[in-house]
C-alpha cells in the first residue's frame, strides 16, 4: 500500500478500476431502493433521495422466500461437504495409492472437466425421473457431487506433500486411514477451504438444474424462487424489485466472500501457481 501511494499513476489506475467494478453494484443497490413506478419514468432518480425499503419488504413478504433460502443453504452446504469429502478421498487415492488402472481412471476423471453440463442434462434428467429424484434434496445435491476439478485440485495438493510425513506416522504405528485423517487432511485445509468456497459459491448461484429438477415451488432454491416471483416485463415495470432481488440473493454470497476472502485469494494464487 505504501509503495502504491508512492506511485500516484498506479494508485489512480487502481482507483479507476475499483470504481469501474463497484459502479454496477452500487447502481444495483441504488435502484433497489427506489419504487418501481418512479424507475419506469426515469432511472436517473436513483441518484438522489428519497429512498425506500419497499422492494425489500415485498421480497420478505413472500411467504416462501425463507423456505427458498433454507433450500439453497441445505443444498449448497451438502454439496460443499460432499465434494470436500469425495475429492479429498479420491485425491488421496490418486496421489498416494497404487492400484491397477489408476492413471487411466484419473484421466477419465479429468475428462469430466471438458464435458459441458448441457450435453448430459437430458440424460441426467431422465435418469433422475426414473429414480423419482426430482423435487427432492437428493435430486438437487447429487449432480453437484461429481466434481472433477475438486479431485484434480486435491490430487495435486496431496502429491505435493512430502512422503516423509506419512512414513513417520507409519513408523509410529498409524494405519493408512489414520495417517490420512490425522496428518494429511489437516495439512490440506488451505486447499479444502479454497475448494469449499468455490463449490459453495457455484452451487448457490446454480440456476439451470434447479429450474428443471425442482418444479415444485416448495423445493425451489433461492435463484429459481426469486426469478419466479418476477412479474412479466419485470425489467420494465418492476426494476426496483428486480434489483432488490439481486441484492437479496447475493447477500449470503457476499457474507461468505467477506469471511473467507483470504482463502479465496490464496486459492486463486495457488491455482495460478
Amino acid at each position, binding site marked *: 500500500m505504501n509503495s502504491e501511494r508512492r506511485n500516484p499513476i498506479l494508485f489512480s489506475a487502481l482507483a479507476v478500476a475499483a470504481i469501474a467494478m463497484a459502479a454496477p453494484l452500487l447502481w444495483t443497490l441504488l435502484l433497489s431502493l427506489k419504487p418501481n413506478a418512479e424507475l*419506469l*419514468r*426515469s432511472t436517473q432518480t436513483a441518484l438522489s433521495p428519497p429512498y425506500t425499503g419497499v422492494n425489500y*419488504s*415485498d*421480497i*420478505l*413478504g*413472500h*411467504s*416462501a422466500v425463507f423456505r427458498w433460502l433454507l433450500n439453497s443453504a441445505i443444498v449448497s452446504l451438502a454439496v460443499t461437504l460432499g465434494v470436500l469429502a469425495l475429492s479429498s478421498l479420491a485425491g488421496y487415492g490418486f496421489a498416494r495409492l497404487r492400484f491397477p488402472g489408476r492413471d487411466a481412471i484419473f484421466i477419465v476423471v479429468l475428462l469430466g472437466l471438458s464435458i459441458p453440463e448441457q450435453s448430459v442434462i437430458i440424460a441426467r*434428467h*431422465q435418469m*433422475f*425421473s426414473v429414480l423419482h429424484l*426430482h*423435487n427432492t434434496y437428493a435430486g438437487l445435491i447429487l449432480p453437484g457431487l461429481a466434481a472433477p476439478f475438486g479431485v484434480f485440485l486435491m490430487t495435486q495438493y496431496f502429491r505435493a506433500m512430502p512422503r516423509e510425513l506419512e512414513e513417520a506416522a507409519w513408523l509410529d504405528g498409524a494405519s493408512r486411514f489414520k495417517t490420512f485423517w490425522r496428518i494429511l487432511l489437516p495439512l490440506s485445509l488451505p486447499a479444502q477451504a479454497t475448494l469449499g468456497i468455490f463449490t459453495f459459491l457455484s452451487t448457490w448461484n446454480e440456476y439451470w438444474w434447479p*429450474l*428443471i*429438477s425442482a*418444479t*415444485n*415451488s416448495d423445493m425451489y432454491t433461492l435463484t*429459481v424462487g426469486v*426469478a*419466479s*416471483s*418476477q*412479474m*412479466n*416485463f*419485470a*425489467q*420494465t*415495470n*418492476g*426494476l426496483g424489485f428486480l434489483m432488490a432481488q439481486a441484492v437479496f440473493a447475493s447477500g449470503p454470497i457476499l457474507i461468505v466472500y467477506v469471511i473467507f476472502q483470504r482463502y479465496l485469494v490464496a486459492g486463486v494464487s495457488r491455482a495460478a501457481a
Partner: protein
Amino acid sequence: MMGSRQTWLTVLSALLLFAAGCSREAGGPVQITLQRFFGACDAQYGSSTDVESAEGECGIITTLINRFNARNPDVHVRVNIVYWPGYDQLSAALAAGDPPDLVTMHQSVISDYSQRKLIVPLDAQLRAAGIDPAAFTRAAREGVTRAGHIYALPFDNWAPLWHINLNLFRQAGLLRDGMPILPHSPEELLQQARQFTRATGKPYLVQSMVNEPYAYARNLFTLLMQQDSHFFVDPRRIELETPQARNVLQLFRQIYAEGLTTRNQDYTAATSAFLNGQGGVYLVGTWMIGTYEDASRQPGSPLAGGYTVVPFPQLYPGRDVTYADGHSWVVPRKPRSAREMAGIVRVLQFLWDNDFEWSRTGHLPASEAVIRSERWRALPHRATVAKLVDTAAPLPPGVQRQFLIQQILSEEMESAITGQKPIDAALADAQRRVNDLLFNLL
C-alpha cells in the same frame, strides 16, 4: 424391552395415522397444482380474497385463487409460480411424469403440446363445467382450438395496439374532435409521421427495436394479414419472399431511414420514452393500458389528459385485422382420479366466471358476453379497442414453435429495417430459417 416395543408400535401407529390423514384420497380436500407466471405479490395481497380491489395481473390472479380456495373447502389449489413463460419447467415436469394439473399457456404455444399429446382436450371438461365454447370470442375460440378440439380454457386475448400521446398529436395538428387522425394507408402513415415530426421535433413512432424478440414479427403478421397474404401456406411452411412482405419491410425501413421512429431503444427504454413524451405512437400490447392511463391522470406527466389507445389501424385494403395471441389454461396429461378431474373442472369454471375481473388487467376478455357488456366497456379505453373482438386473429392453429418463429423473424426484420441487410436477403433468410425449423420438427 417390552416397553421399548410398545413405544415403537405407538410411534408407528401415529405415523400411519398421520400419513392417512395426509392422503389425497382420504376425504380431505382434493389438491390441484396450478402452474402460472405473472409473478408473485404475496407482500401486497397475501391471503386477500378481495378480487375487485386487486390491480395488475399478479394481484388479480393471486386474489382469484385465494378466493377460490376460500369458497371451495373441498378443493385446494396449490400455486407453483414460475419465471415467464415457464415452458422449460413444464416440459421438465412432463418428462419427469409429474406435471401440474393446470398451467397458464399462450394460445400460440398450444400446438407445441397438443400435437405431442402432452395436454388433454377439454371438450368434455368444459361441457361438465357448463362452459360453451360458443361463448368464447372468435379470437379466443380459434386460439384454443386444434383439430376440432378445445385444448384450453381461454383466459384473454392481447394484440399489438397503438398507444397515442394526444398532447403531441394536438401539437402536430393530428386531432379531429379530440380523436387522433390515423392513417389508412402506408402513404398516409408516412405523410402523417412527417407532419408530426416537423411539428413536434419528435419521432412519430416509439418502438422497441433493440434486443426485441417479438414486436417486429407481430407487426409483420398484422400487416401481412391486412394484405390478405396467406404466408403460412401450410402449418409447416412459411412464404415470405412475397410482394406483401416486401411492402411491410420497405415501410418500416423508410420510417427508420427518415427518423420517424425512435432508434436504439429496447423494450424498457421504449416504454419509458412514451411515458416521457418522446414520441407520438407506441406500438405495444394491451398490457400497458393501465400504466399509461394512470400516467394520464397525473398532473405534470407528458401524457396528462392526453392518452388514448386504439387497435392497429388498417393500412392495406385487404381486411381489417390485427394479429393476436392470448393466455389460456391447459391441463397436462397424466393419470388422475375422477375427484381430481372434478376439482380441475371447478377451477376452470371459477376462472371463466371471473373473466371480467381478469380483463381489468388490460387484456381482452375471452368471453363474448363480457366484451359486449357495458361493464367492460365502461373500463378506460375499452370501448375504443372493443372492435378487436371482430378483428383479432391468431396464426393458423397448426403452426408450432411460434415463439421461436417470432424470434427468427424479428432478427431478420431488425437487420433489414436498420439497413444492415438488404430487404430481399432478410426475407429469404427468414423464410429459410423458419422453414428449416418447421421441417425438422419431430
